[in-house]
């Protein structure tokens, strides 16, 4: 992470008046390739649709979530096996992906991102 990124993040934190130190976690991800598309499945338990931000910038697809601690308000932890917090993960996109047609949906804590391949690249050639 560059110093520039760090300073912008610090500014954002101040604007939202957040005081808790946050650490980002890496969501477990499955990547499957079909003839016409790539499909990503990311485990992000506890996250809702509105918590997620998906960004495509140049050749990078970045998924970042906010974390809402309301679920844990007033609870005293006794025993812990997993950590809670926001998620983030970036992927490098191939030039074969059609950026305009990327779609995503969120269901039961799993984010599914469909990355269609550019139509002109998916063509069956029939043998004459």
């Amino acid at each position: 992470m560059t110093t520039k990124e760090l300073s912008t993040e610090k500014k954002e934190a101040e604007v939202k008046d957040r005081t808790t130190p946050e650490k980002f976690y890496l969501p477990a991800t499955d990547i499957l390739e079909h003839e016409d598309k790539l499909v990503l499945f990311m485990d992000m338990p506890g996250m809702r649709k509105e918590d997620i931000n998906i960004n495509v910038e140049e050749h990078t697809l970045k998924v970042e979530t906010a974390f809402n601690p309301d679920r844990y308000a007033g609870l005293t932890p006794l025993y812990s096996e997993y950590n809670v917090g926001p998620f983030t993960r970036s992927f490098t996109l191939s030039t074969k992906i059609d950026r305009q047609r990327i779609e995503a949906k969120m269901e039961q804590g799993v984010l599914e991102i469909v990355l269609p391949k550019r139509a002109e690249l998916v063509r069956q050639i029939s043998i004459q």
Partner: protein
Amino acid sequence: MYGLSRTLNTILNIQNALERAMDGRVDHSSTYQSGVFPPVNILEKDEVLHVICELPGVRSEDLDLEIKGRHLRIHGERKNNIDEHASIHRLERSNGAFDRTFGLPYEVDSNQAKASFTDGLLTIELPKAEAEKAKRISIN
């Protein structure tokens, strides 16, 4: 079981502290490392245990919960429905059947138990059994 869990937890905490010290905000670790599935957090509020369990993508009809004495059993199946025609680039998410039983810190009233399942998080609320609650003794 609790002695061991506490030791493991201490080790996990040390690991996390080290990662934080070395890496700053993004440490590229998952939310859990202990290898158990599904991972649980046990919390408490007003003598009610809240057992919260990460089960992303699992459907409630594929999930079974049982309570017996001081033990809670969570078992079921995670069906990720990996398309057999697709070629796999990366498979990090756990898949398949799971079965876990763990001890609770005290006896709970199973008749008052409640469970909800939203956003891939299963929350089980277990109130402390009447017999376990501390009795106030009045001084004459």
